[in-house]
C-alpha cells in the first residue's frame, strides 16, 4: 500500500537575512492511503506551512513533496492547477464558499471548472453523508457556519481527490457543529477510504483521527496512533514542558 502524500526532508523559510523565519526544518512524513491524520502543534510551529507545501499551494526550499506518484515540487503553474483540481481537496478554516453560488453549485464547482462530469451516485452518497440534501439550493449566506463547513467538506470529497487537506476546519465552529464535521471526516476515511490530513490545535478534534503528528519549531517531534483526547492532551503537556525546558 503506497502513501497518498509524502514529504521528504522538506525545508521552508520565509524572508531573508535577519528577518528570516524557518517555518519547516527538515520535515519528513508519510500519509497512508485511507487514513485520517491530524497535525498538531503550538501556534507558529509550521502546521499550515506543511499543509500548504504538501498541497502544492506553496513552494519549498529543499526536499521533495509527493502526492501519490507525482512529485509536486517542480510542477509549473499548469501542473499545480491540474493537481489542485483533481487530486487534492481543500477545507479552509473559513471562507470556503463562493457567495454567488448555491450549495450544490459550490460542491460541484471543481468538477465544473475542470469540465468533468459529476458522478451522481457518489455525489448522492456524499450529500447523504454530510446530511445536506435539503440545503442544496441554498446560498452560503443562508447556511449556518457548521453547514457551510459541511458543504466545504462535500466539495472536497466529491471530486474523489487522493488527499483532502483541512486547515483547522472546526476552528470557527461551536462544539456540536464541529463534531458533525469531524465525524464526517472520520467516516469518509473509514467508509470511503479517503485520505484526510487535518490541522488542528484542539485535542478533542485530534481524537477523531487515526494518527496525530506533533510539530514544534518546524520539526516533527512526536507521533500518536489511535489517539484519545486525553492522550493528546498529555502529549501536548509534555511537549509544552519540553519547550519550557529548552527555553530555560
Amino acid at each position, binding site marked *: 500500500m503506497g502513501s497518498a502524500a509524502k514529504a521528504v526532508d522538506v525545508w521552508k523559510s520565509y524572508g531573508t537575512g535577519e528577518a528570516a523565519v524557518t517555518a519547516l526544518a527538515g520535515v519528513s512524513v508519510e500519509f497512508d492511503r485511507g487514513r485520517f491524520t491530524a497535525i498538531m502543534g503550538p501556534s507558529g510551529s509550521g502546521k499550515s506551512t506543511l499543509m500548504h507545501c504538501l498541497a502544492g499551494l506553496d513552494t519549498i526550499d529543499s526536499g521533495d513533496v509527493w502526492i501519490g506518484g507525482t512529485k509536486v515540487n517542480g510542477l509549473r503553474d499548469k501542473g499545480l492547477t491540474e493537481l489542485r483540481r483533481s487530486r487534492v*481537496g481543500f477545507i479552509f478554516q473559513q*471562507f470556503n464558499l463562493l*457567495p*454567488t453560488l448555491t450549495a450544490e453549485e459550490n460542491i460541484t464547482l471543481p468538477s*465544473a*471548472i475542470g469540465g468533468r462530469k459529476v458522478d451522481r451516485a457518489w455525489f448522492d452518497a456524499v450529500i447523504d453523508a454530510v446530511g445536506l440534501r435539503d440545503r442544496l439550493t441554498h446560498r452560503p449566506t443562508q447556511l449556518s457556519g457548521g453547514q457551510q463547513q459541511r458543504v466545504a467538506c462535500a466539495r472536497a470529497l466529491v471530486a474523489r481527490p487522493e488527499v483532502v487537506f483541512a486547515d483547522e476546519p472546526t476552528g470557527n465552529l461551536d462544539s456540536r457543529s464541529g463534531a458533525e464535521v469531524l465525524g464526517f471526516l472520520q467516516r469518509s476515511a473509514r467508509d470511503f477510504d479517503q485520505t484526510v490530513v487535518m490541522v488542528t490545535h484542539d485535542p478533542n478534534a485530534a481524537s477523531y483521527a487515526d494518527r496525530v503528528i506533533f510539530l514544534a519549531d518546524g520539526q516533527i517531534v512526536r507521533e500518536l496512533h489511535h489517539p484519545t483526547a486525553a492522550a493528546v492532551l498529555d502529549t501536548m503537556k509534555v511537549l509544552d514542558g519540553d519547550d519550557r525546558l529548552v527555553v530555560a
Partner: protein
Amino acid sequence: MLTATLKSVLARKLRLVLSGLAVVLGVMFVSGSFVLTDTLDRSFKDLFATAYSEVDVEVAVKSKVGQDDPEAARAGTLTAADVAAVESVDGVRTAVGDVVGSARPIGENGKVLTTSGAPRLGIAWRDEGQEEIRDGRGPQRDDEVVISAYLAETGGFQVGEQLSVLTLEPKRTFTVTGIFGYPGDRDSLGGELTTAFTEATAQQLLLGTPGAYSGITVRADEGVSQTVLRDRVQGELGDAYQVKTGEQLAAESADEIGEGLAFFNYVLLGFAGIALFVGVFIILNTFSIIVAQRTRELALLRAMGASRRQMITSVVVEAVVIGLIASVVGLGAGIGVGALLATLFSTFGGGSLHLAGIAVPPSAIISSFAVGLVVTVVAALLPAVRASRIPPVAALREASTPDRPLTRLTVAGGVLTLAGGGLLGFGFADGTLWLIMSGLLVSFVGVALLTPLISRPVVSLIGRLLSWSVPGTLGRRNSARNPRRTAITAAALMVGISLITGVSVVLTSATTSMTKVADTQIKADLIISGESSANGQVGGTFAADRMDRITGTPGVESAFGWYNDGVLVNGERRFATAVTDVPAMERIFGLSAAGGTITDLEDGEIGVDAVSATALNLRQGSTATVQTTKGEQRTYTVAFVLAESRVVDDMLFLPESAVDGFALPQISSAFIKADQGADVADVRKRLEPLFADNPEVSVQDLSSYVRQQAAQLDTVLMMIQVLLALAILIAVLGVVNTLALSVVERTRELGLLRAIGMRRAQVMRMITVESVVISVFGALLGIVVGTALGVAAVRALEDMGITDIGIPWAQLGGYLLISAGIGVVAAILPAIRAARLNVLQAIAHDSA
C-alpha cells in the same frame, strides 16, 4: 484625522490614478478647448492685421440686401472715375482700384482644388501691392497669371507651366509667369489659394464687367489718420458707398472669425461637459465602492469616537486631493493637446495659418481648477455621507451588509426621468437649447437611478448568452452581485452611447425622409448641380445658355434650372429662386396650387410656397417689395401660392427677368426628366459633354444625388462620434475601475477558486465575461435611451422636413459589438491582476 486621510490616499495609488484619470481627461478637454480657441483667435487677429497692414481706407459699393459685413454680396462695382474721385481727396497718397473675385484653379488631376474653408481668390496683379514676387515676373499678357506660393505648393505648379482656372466663365487656361508670397515670408495669409491676373482679364473673369473694380484701396498721406481720411472719402463719395478704415476691417474680420471660434469653443466645452458628467459617475462609483470596502475600517474609527463630520471630511479631503492633482495634470495635458491641435489645424486644417504663440488664457486655468475640484467633490459627497452613516457595530459584523432595497432609488429615478422628459419636451417644442441640455442631464440621472432595478433582469439575460462555460457563469453572477455598482458603471457608458445613438437616429431619419421624398415626389431622372451645393463654397454654377442645350438633347422630356439670390422681402432677409420653366418644375416636383395657377411668372409677379406664404403673410394677389442684390427695389404681386409640399420648403419664386439683379446670374441646379422609355444612362452620357469645360458641375442620377447629400450627414455623425469618444473612453475607465476594485474586494474568492483548481485563463475569462456583461448592458441602455431621444427629436423636427423615422439598425448593432469589444479591453488589466494573485496570500487576504 487629516494626516490619516492623506496617508490613506497616497497608500492606495491605484485608486488615486483610476479615479483621478476620469477628471484628468475631462479637465484636459476643457483647458484644451480654451487653449486651442485662444491660440487660433490670436492667430486670426494677426492674420487680418497683416492682410490690412497696407490699407488705410477701403471703398466698396454698399450692399443693398443686408448688413455691411465683409462677406455680403455687393450691389455693384466701382469705375475708374470713382478711383479718380477718391484720388483727388485731400490727404490721399494713392488710391488703387482692386479687382477681387472667385477663381478656382484646377489641379493636375483635372479636379478643382479645394480648401477647408479658406477662399479661392482671383485678383488683379499690382506691382506695388503687398504681394511680393519670389520667382519669375508679373503677368503682362491676358493669358498670363502669377500664383501664390501656397497655391503653387498645393497644386504642384511651377513657373512656365499651364494653369486652368474657373471663374465666372468656364475653364480658361493660362501660363504661370511667377509665384508670389506675402510679407513675413508667408506663403498665404490664411490658407487661401490666390491667382493674380492682368487687370483687364481680372475685370472680365472675376467681375464680368470690363473696367470695373470691386473696391478701392487708399493709402493716406503722412500725418493723416485713417479715420480722418475715411470721413473725407465718405464725404466725397456719398452714402451709396461703404468706406472703412483698414483697422476697422481687420477688427471686423477678426470679430467674425472670433464669433465662429467662440461658438466652436462652446461646442467643445459642451462635449467636455458631457465627458465630465460621465466622470462624475465614475468618481461616485469609485468612492462608493471604496467606502463599502472600508466599512469595517470606517466603523472602527466611529467606534473609537470619530464624529460623522470627521468621516465626511475624511472622504471629502480625499476627493479634494484627487481633484487638485487631477486638475493640475489635466491642465497640463490640455495645454499640450490644445497646442497640438492648433498646430495640426495650421498645418492641415487651415493650411499655412501662421500660429501666434501658444499661451494659456486665464479662462483655461480657472475653469480647469473649478471644474476639476467641483466635479470630484460633488461626486464624492454622496459616498461621504454614506460613510458617515456607517454604524460603529458594523466593525463587528462579518460580511458586508446586504444591498438595501431599491425602492427609494427607483421612485427618485422615475420622477427624475419624467421631469427630464418634460424638460426635453418643452426644449424640443420651442428649440431652447438650455432646456434641452438640462432635460438631457436630468433624464440621464433619472435613468441612471432606474438602472439598478433594470439591471437584474437585463444583466441576467445578457449574461445567459455569454455563460456557456463555468467561468462565464461565475462572471455573470458577479456582475449581478452589486446592482448599484454595475448600474452606475453601465450608466456611465450609456450617456455617450445614447447621445451618439440619438444623433444617429436623427441623421438617419433625415436621410430616410430625403430618400423618401426623392423616391415618391421628385420625378427628375437626372440632376445637374455644382460643388457649391455640396460644400458651401463658391463655384459650380453654369451659364443660362446651357439650359437650351439641355432641353434640346435627345431623350430629355422636360427640364428646368434655377438661379438663387439672397434678397430682402419687405425688409426681411430671404432666399429667392428664379425658375427657367415653372410648369416643368410643377410636373417634376409634383406641385399643386393652393391659390392662383402655376405658370411662368410675368414681370412683376412672384410665387410663394405654403411655408413662406405663412412666414411672410402673403396670399394670392397680395403685394411685396423685393430687393435683389444688385437690382432696384420693386413691388411684386403674388401670382400663385403652392400647396404644402415636401420638396419645396420655404421658397420664394421671382420671374426670370429679375435674374439680372442677382449677385450671380448663373444657374445653380437643373432637374431633368427623361423621355418615357429612354435610357437614363444614355441621356446622362449625352449631357455630360455640355459641361466638359466645367469640372465643378456634375450630372447625376437622382439616387446618387441623394446619396451625395446624405454623405454630408455622415461627416457630421463622424465628428460627433469623435467628440463623444472621450466620454466613452472615460466610461471605459469606469469599467476598468469597477472591475479592478471588485478584484481587490474578491481577493479571497479568487484565491479560493485558484485553490480548488481554476486555471489562470479561466480566472481571466471570468473577469472578462463580467466586464462584457456590464459594457453590453450599458450599450443596450444607451441604445434604448438614445433611440427614444432621437425619435423625440425627430418628432420635434417634423417642421424642418424630417418626417420619417429611420433607425440605423446596422449602426446600433455595431455599437453593441463595439461595446462588447470595449468590455474585453476593459477587462485586460483587472483580469491580469486577478490571474497573478498568489493563491495563499489571496486566501489569507483581509477583506476589510
